[in-house]
């Protein structure tokens, strides 16, 4: 999500799950980390973005020394997702400190915090297991702000003596935060800029590949090449155009935005269906055109609705309300479009 974290595969080497559990971690082990992002790291980030072995982009949990830290050096806490860990260590170039990596099962800070794996219990246990209290003299932990969803700062203080300080949302703001000693309101706000939305497109494409392939082949065999192309266009509108254009598509709800975008995507196909067969009777051509206008927009709208999980601002209540409002509409129009195109195709074959 918005925590555009970046990866480490190379520094930690291949690991087995068993080696990461608290029981098997030697308490006094301090590993070393650098701020350098290697080509292997970048390749790991690329694969993570495409969802390749999506849960396996992990760093070994525990304590890491960055540079030449002293007992006075700051302690930064992060998730054991390579993108998170690398985002942190890469911005700390030239800063001596410790990085405490929690076991979030290879999930980024915000999502893991929502689940609770980046949470109070794991933080407290990790502080104890690594013997952090003996490594540093101070009692300060700097956490990414988005980790707050899973961590109760006052609880951590009570149980470990360490005071949790929430740093900025984005790791990139850390050097400025360290200099100023506090986060500006701007650093505290999560964004969802074009870049943040663009990096999500690969995994959206991966997610729809198989169902889209099936839908395309089915459309091709049952109806024809125009319908197959329509299916691809509606899906592309949902997973490529929608993330890119999100803030600029009119209306507030994701589904209505998706219906608008899907309607635009369906328009050329409706026109082609109407104008493409001048030898057919007008009502069959009109029926074909209507089928595209009914069948394609709900596909885009459904994909748009599913994009809510990738954004940085949708709430559970809001999404639930939207689902109740729009999913029946999508189902009926989609069903109507499919029936109509099949009917038109059959009539054309018979007639």
């Amino acid at each position, binding site marked *: 999500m918005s925590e555009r974290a970046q990866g480490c595969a190379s520094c930690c080497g291949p690991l087995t799950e068993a080696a990461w559990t608290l029981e098997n971690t030697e308490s006094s082990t301090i590993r070393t980390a650098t701020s350098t992002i290697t080509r292997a790291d970048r390749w790991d980030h690329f694969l993570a973005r495409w969802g390749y072995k999506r849960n396996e982009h992990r760093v070994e949990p525990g304590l890491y020394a960055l540079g030449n830290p002293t007992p006075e050096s700051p302690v930064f806490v992060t998730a054991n997702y390579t993108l998170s860990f690398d985002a942190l260590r890469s911005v700390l170039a030239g800063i001596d400190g410790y990085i405490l990596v929690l076991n979030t099962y290879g999930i980024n800070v915000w999502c893991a915090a929502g689940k609770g794996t980046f949470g109070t219990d794991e933080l407290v246990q990790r502080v104890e297991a690594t013997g952090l209290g003996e490594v540093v003299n101070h009692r300060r932990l700097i956490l990414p702000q988005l980790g707050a969803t899973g961590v109760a700062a006052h609880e951590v203080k009570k149980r470990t003596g360490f005071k949790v300080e929430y740093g900025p949302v984005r790791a990139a703001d850390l050097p400025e935060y360290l200099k100023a000693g506090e986060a500006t309101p701007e650093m505290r706000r999560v964004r969802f800029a074009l870049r943040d939305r663009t990096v999500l497109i690969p995994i959206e494409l991966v997610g729809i590949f198989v169902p889209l392939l099936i839908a395309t082949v089915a459309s091709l065999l049952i109806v024809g090449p125009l319908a197959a192309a329509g299916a691809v266009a509606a899906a592309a509108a949902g997973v490529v155009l929608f993330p890119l254009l999100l803030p600029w598509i009119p209306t*507030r709800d994701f589904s209505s935005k998706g219906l608008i975008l899907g309607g635009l995507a369906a328009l050329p196909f409706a026109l082609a269906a109407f104008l493409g067969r001048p030898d057919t009777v007008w009502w069959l051509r009109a029926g074909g055109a209507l089928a595209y206008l009914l069948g394609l927009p709900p596909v885009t709208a459904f994909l748009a609705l599913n994009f809510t999980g990738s954004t940085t601002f949708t709430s559970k209540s809001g999404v639930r309300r939207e689902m109740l409002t729009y999913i029946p509409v999508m189902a009926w129009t989609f069903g109507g479009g499919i029936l109509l195109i099949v009917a038109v195709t059959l009539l054309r074959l018979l007639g």
Partner: protein
Amino acid sequence: MATDAIRADINTLEYNPALCINCGMCIAVCPHGVFAPNGRAVQLVRHEACMECGACQQNCPTGAISVDSGVGCAAAMIYAALTGRKEPTCGPGPEPGDGECCGTGAPCCG
């Protein structure tokens, strides 16, 4: 940012200023600027921008804030509904079955 224009206008966030000790944690943790300082107690200034992440409730030492937090993800909710699971969550974890939040491979889990 233009994305501010699209936000949920309904949510479950509730705040009781009478319990506020003005520690400012809610202001620090909120990613959408929902709270702001205002004299002796924090003030709710952008209620409608709340995404129900739950960070403020989690970090309020006096229990002045309550919110029914969860993931604002349609894919996860649909998957939870289809599999009869109660509350959708994201990504792998210590529980068996974790990591199949929505089964769609939605980017939320990465």
